[in-house]
């Protein structure tokens, strides 16, 4: 996770680069970097399951932003439906909340990254940027809490996209 952790640290640094009157460039790069921190965290965790370490980088390039978003939207919807049934407190429920945090944060910050990189008309504020960075930090913590759980590993596989197999 070293690269992902470094990116998150860099995002925080960029967001606080100018104590007053932050430059839009700094804020935009902070948002984009925070997204890539989470993006690379999830990919590195997924590819860790590949036994041949020399091929993990290549495998990581198979992941696509759109498919990862779609999988995260599906997971978040599934978990929201589950929470709506008011399930009793349990270790499984705690895991579900952590996974919801990861999936939801991925969706939110991915859109922010797109805005930061391409929507030059948008005026960023430090509050909005720190909201994203804090959310990514929380997603990192949630992921660390559940990374070995089957449901978390299943989520990683889903990030590759739906199965498409023709006869």
């Amino acid at each position: 996770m070293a690269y992902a952790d470094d990116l998150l640290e860099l995002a925080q640094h960029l967001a606080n680069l100018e104590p007053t009157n932050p430059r839009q460039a700094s804020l935009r790069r902070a948002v984009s970097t925070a997204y890539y921190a989470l993006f690379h965290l999830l990919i590195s965790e997924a590819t860790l399951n590949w036994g041949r370490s020399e091929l993990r980088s290549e495998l990581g390039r198979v992941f696509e932003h759109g498919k990862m978003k779609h999988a995260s939207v599906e997971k978040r919807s599934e978990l929201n439906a589950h929470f709506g049934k008011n399930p009793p407190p349990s270790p499984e429920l705690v895991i579900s909340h952590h996974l919801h945090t990861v999936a939801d944060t991925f969706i939110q910050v991915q859109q922010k990254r797109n805005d930061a990189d391409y929507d030059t008309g948008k005026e960023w504020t430090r509050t909005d940027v720190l909201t994203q960075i804090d959310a990514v930090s929380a997603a990192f913590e949630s992921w660390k809490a559940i990374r070995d759980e089957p449901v978390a590993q299943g989520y990683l596989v889903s990030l590759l996209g739906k199965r498409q197999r023709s006869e």
Partner: protein
Amino acid sequence: MRDNEVVYIAKAFAQQAQLDEAVNAVKQTLGPDVLRLRYTLGQDWSGESAIFFRIVLSDRASRRDQLLNATNQIATAIVERLQPLEQWGVLPYFNFRSQSEQAILQEEAWA
């Protein structure tokens, strides 16, 4: 060539007056730290129907030690009470700024 494909329009776009009412009703439940709640309908980066909320927070809730908790609570409350995707067919996205920041920027879209 004829195209008979059914075009799906999210309920949020088709029934904007009702959506306005629903958002205003949710706003009333969010507490004093939510000073403004505005929204725009559109598409997200991948072309999916989306609702983009713009929320002005009190300076108290915008403090660094309060920010994550405050924004999580607000976003969760809006999602639970409005159910943007399940009831209105749009993915929710949240944008926050502080009262002080809005006072400086004076953006009409956030006022």
